[in-house]
């Protein structure tokens, strides 16, 4: 599929000025591009099944090693975004659900609508303009700065992490907000809430002990499902913020027609989404006693 797209790896290799046909042919052979697409595919699948994702054209290093090195920043970004989005999503969602159709509910829902309608890359750029360019309190891009570097390692990383996290997490947060609200309102209409009230529990206890635990169950599945979207969002966010993760790597690989790297990234990303979904399902059985495995 990628090979159908215009552009050629060899052309990227030799550069604008061009090279002699013999040299081009030699490179083609070295990269394995002289064989037919089908042959290449069969060879590649053989490699994948034995755990070998091939070698990057451009970086001349094994694809698995490259991906592994760049995965950690992405994992950090994902985790912090999920944490950020879930935390604020739940808090605001619960807050909105305490009084459905009230002022606070309407405002929260308008904010949510606004947040998930905003394109990620635009929000990212706006945040950069405000916090980094105008106020100059947060770094513009990257993961570490040259000057602060070693001294304030944690602080440095955190300040770099802040803006991408907000950007990527806000969409998730907006979805979680709406989901938690709907789920809470449903839980609050259940019979066991009347039981809890008849016991004389305070509203706060009813909310957090009886309703929230039930309401969070579908939210967890939902967040698991959103991870796929978030990974694709990470591609954009990482390029906006120059975050050295898988997303940026993918973008570079695409521009350079680095076929093995692109394929490797696709495989690793789809595999991890599958695994995460599976883990969420397992997690669910621990949280909901009704479907606990025997």
């Amino acid at each position, binding site marked *: 599929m990628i090979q159908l797209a215009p552009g050629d790896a060899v052309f990227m290799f030799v550069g604008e000025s061009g090279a002699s046909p013999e040299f081009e042919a030699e490179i083609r052979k070295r990269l394995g591009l002289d064989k037919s697409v089908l042959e290449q595919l069969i060879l590649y699948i053989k490699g994948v099944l034995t755990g070998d994702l091939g070698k990057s054209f451009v970086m001349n290093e094994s694809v698995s090693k490259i991906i592994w090195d760049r995965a950690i920043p992405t994992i950090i970004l994902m985790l912090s975004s999920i944490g950020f989005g879930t935390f604020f999503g739940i808090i605001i969602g619960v807050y909105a659900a305490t009084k459905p159709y009230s002022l606070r509910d309407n405002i929260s829902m308008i904010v949510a609508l606004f947040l998930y309608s905003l394109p990620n890359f635009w929000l990212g750029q706006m945040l950069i303009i405000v916090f980094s360019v105008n106020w100059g309190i947060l770094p513009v891009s990257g993961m570490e700065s040259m000057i602060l570097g070693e001294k304030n390692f944690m602080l440095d990383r955190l300040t770099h992490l802040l803006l991408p996290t907000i950007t990527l997490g806000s969409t998730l947060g907006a979805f979680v907000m709406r989901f938690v609200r709907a789920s809470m309102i449903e839980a609050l209409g259940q019979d066991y809430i*009347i039981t809890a009230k*008849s*016991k*004389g529990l305070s509203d706060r206890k009813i909310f957090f*002990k009886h309703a929230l635990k039930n309401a969070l*169950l579908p939210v967890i599945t939902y967040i698991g499902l959103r991870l796929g979207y978030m990974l694709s969002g990470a591609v954009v966010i990482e390029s906006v913020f120059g975050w050295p993760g898988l997303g940026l790597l993918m973008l570079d690989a695409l521009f350079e027609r680095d076929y093995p790297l692109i394929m490797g990234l696709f495989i690793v990303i789809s595999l991890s989404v599958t695994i995460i979904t599976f883990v969420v399902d397992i997690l669910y059985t621990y949280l*909901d*006693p*009704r479907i606990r495995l*025997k």
Partner: protein
Amino acid sequence: MNNSKLLKIENLRMYIDTYEGVVKAVDGVDLNINHGEIVGIVGESGSGKSLTSRTILKLLPEGGKIISGKIQFKNIDLLSLKEKELRNIRGSKISFIFQNPSTFLNPVLKIGDQIAENILLHQNIKKEKIQEIIINSLLDVGLRNPKNIIKSYPHQLSGGMQQRVMIAMAISCKPDLIIADECTTALDVTTQLQILDLLKKISKKTNTAILLITHNLAVVSYLCSKVYVMHNGKTIESADSKELFNNPKENYTKSLLNSSKQKINDKDEKKLNENTLIEINNINKEFILPGSKKLLRAVKNVSLKLSEGEIFGIAGESGSGKTTVANLLMGLTELSSGKIIFLDKEIYKFMKDDRKLFRKNIQMVFQDPYGSLNPRKTIGETLSLVFNIHFDLNQNDIKKKVLDLLKMVELSPPEMFFDRHPHELSGGQQQRVAIARAISTSPKLIITDEAVASLDMSIRAEILKLLKKINFETNVTMIMISHDLSILKNMCKRIAIMYLGEIVEIGNKNEIFNNPKHDYTKKLISATLEIPS
């Protein structure tokens, strides 16, 4: 027994603001309860009995407002209390037991935690001692093995056990008053009796007053010393239990009593011909339980023979296999072994040869009428569909047939019902439509599966009358499946009692009621509560 006043309600009114206007849910209730007394409120659904009980502790529905009235509990004026002060009374001085324990218990919290919550909130007790108190209250409500129950979740217990847990929760703080809202309605008859006896025992032992809310007059007569009758949000009559049943004053009370007794004329009992319609020969049905390799034998060696025009009853508790038998007869699940012969043909062969004819001849009426009607189709469309499938008629003839059907099930004027949607009809009317659908193909056999279980007493009596009339006029054979022996007693000539998948006793109803042979039948009959007449 201390005979002083515990709760006194005067002229209570609670209205609910809804989009469609004000609903006068509670509209003039007067009520007195003494210490240690068991008092009943009876009324049909929508009479405001549950809302009255919740208004006592200001557990109001959304939009609910107390308009007037006075509620005196001991020396406290409950309506003047602030929310925080009310919370101190809820669960400690006055506690609730609700109808459906499976939805009223929180599914994700352990039983022990749910009971402990109540105790921790109202009593100053160290955490170590709590376990002991919980275990004792679970033992008090007759649950064996309380240590395991504390650690389980609600879904791991049976309905009866869940209701016992609810009661344990309610008595854990030694309240003065327990409000039991339809607390046995969702339970089997034998379990119902156990729970009622338990309430009686608790009330006697601890001098706790109980306010029992129910639509079931038999339950009231069994348990209560004093009864209030509610209708349209008002208490219209109150009397000592015996007095009320022997000498009701209000017309509404009289009609309620009459319909509850479900007396149906036996005079028009017709003679049955001897033609066998359906013969069930030693059928078995086994299921493999999901998640384990265990085999569940839902139906064991059941044999039956029904004559044309007979009304036959199958009684049993939930899980006894009665519905599985119905599904097997309908050909909805496959037999594990045995044979069913319907109209001289083996049913699977019948279905294979002529599925249309088979379906035309066996029809079913289900428990939940709303769930069995397509909500998007008008009544006319639903009923016409049957004629489109089974008969070759033009549109005008079909409409005429449908109107005839509606007339037959006493929905008048039929033209009006023709264009209505199911949600515009009451439960009783919906069930009439479901019956009309069942008889529209002029079947040979109609199976009713708990067809009146979800209906109010007065409507229930009307539907049963209608079924009897249809049986009389069309000579259709009926199999009535019910957990309620009193219904079958009035409707059927022969009854089979099912227990754990087997027919333990079968025979003429008089024989079964007067001289039950099997132990289970005896138990079932003694657990069936009746209104004294």
